[in-house]
């Protein structure tokens, strides 16, 4: 009855948003940034395999690139997993003139990833 399980290759994760918390003390910026102490920046990682699922937000270009890759991988790699939507964060900090500044910075955190 010995049943040998079919060994499967571990499936690589498909393109999705991954956790990344940027702690300002890790980069020694905590002496001039008052708030926040850090923020969830996230990052995008994973494969963009065929078939490109709906949630991968593939562009027409990515679909064509997938097709070309399927014909001859030496012509082009598969599409890349990249941020498709970013959001701003606000920071309270002391500037180089020792003025206290509250400012919002665009494109600081990943909201969504996709295959591009």
């Amino acid at each position, binding site marked *: 009855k010995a049943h040998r399980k079919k060994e499967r290759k571990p499936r690589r994760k498909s393109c999705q948003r991954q956790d990344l918390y940027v702690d300002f003390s890790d980069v020694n910026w905590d002496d001039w940034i008052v708030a926040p102490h850090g923020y969830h920046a996230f990052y995008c990682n994973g494969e963009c395999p065929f078939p490109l699922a709906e949630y991968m937000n593939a562009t027409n270009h990515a679909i064509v690139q997938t097709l070309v890759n399927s014909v001859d991988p030496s012509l082009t790699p598969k599409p890349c997993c990249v941020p498709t939507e970013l959001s701003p964060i606000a920071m*309270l*900090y002391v500037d180089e003139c020792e*003025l206290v500044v*509250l400012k919002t*910075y665009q494109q600081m955190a990943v909201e969504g990833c996709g295959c591009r």
Partner: protein
Amino acid sequence: RASAMIPEIGRNNLIEQAAKYGTNTREDEIVNEFEKKLLNMFGLTRRPTPNEDMPIPRIMQHLYKAHMGDTSDGPHDLYPGWEPGFDLPSDDIASTVNTARSFHHKDEFERIEGLPDHHIRLLFNISTLPPNENLKYAELLLHREEIKQHVSLPDEDRMQRINIYEVIKFPDDDVTDTSSFDDVTEEQNRILEIVNKRRNKFGSQKMREPITRLVATRLVDTSNTTWERFDVSAETQKWLKDKNHGLVVEIVRDGDESTPAPDVTSHVRLRRDVRNENEPREWHHKRPLLLTYTHDGKETNLSRRSRKKR
């Protein structure tokens, strides 16, 4: 390299990575370029290195919390005497700006020759505002603390008037020009003092008082504690283009404009209170403040953020 944007370990790793590129540019130059990009991203010219004990005005901390939509621990709970109504400027303004900066006045210029002692000059050096930022709004904040003895007084005795004047011109702008007051050295101050003494000795035909213009007036009740906010956008705009002589504030009894109000120092915090042992830390949080609101052209704003559940 305490003043570098990139920590030492990160710098070394980046130099190693740059070396693999095999370009003609030196690895440390490539990393320096990256460091410049980081500074540009924040609109900085160099890495800030503030003093460890530099106090951050509570108003700015509150503005940050207000922007984040954090009302869980209102500032009135954290700081006794805080006005609960204090908030970001109206959304009409907050939605058109993405940067707020706080400026303290230069204490050393708070007296003006030719004006009565109870007239306090507030001179803010806003010359460090980045030229690529568009000034949309500016407000002057004055902190008032209740005068406990006034609580039981009748209404008419509790009321005082705050008058804010813009200093348009000094009798002799060349001598009293303070547009570059950051660069005034001790030697220049000494010369200015001698010039003024000589003028007093020999008499001057010129008008002694500066020309001022009333920009705001408000009747206040001395039996409560709050921050008074005055729109000084027009004046601040002028300072960016022309000479900056600052503002003058006077507090007078209501109905008797010629008499300075008593207990001014303990009511409206225009000056340090040497009798208070908690100074100067308390002074830092309650001293007059100029808040400027600017926009740098990037697609963000300071509107109150809605709390999103991820």
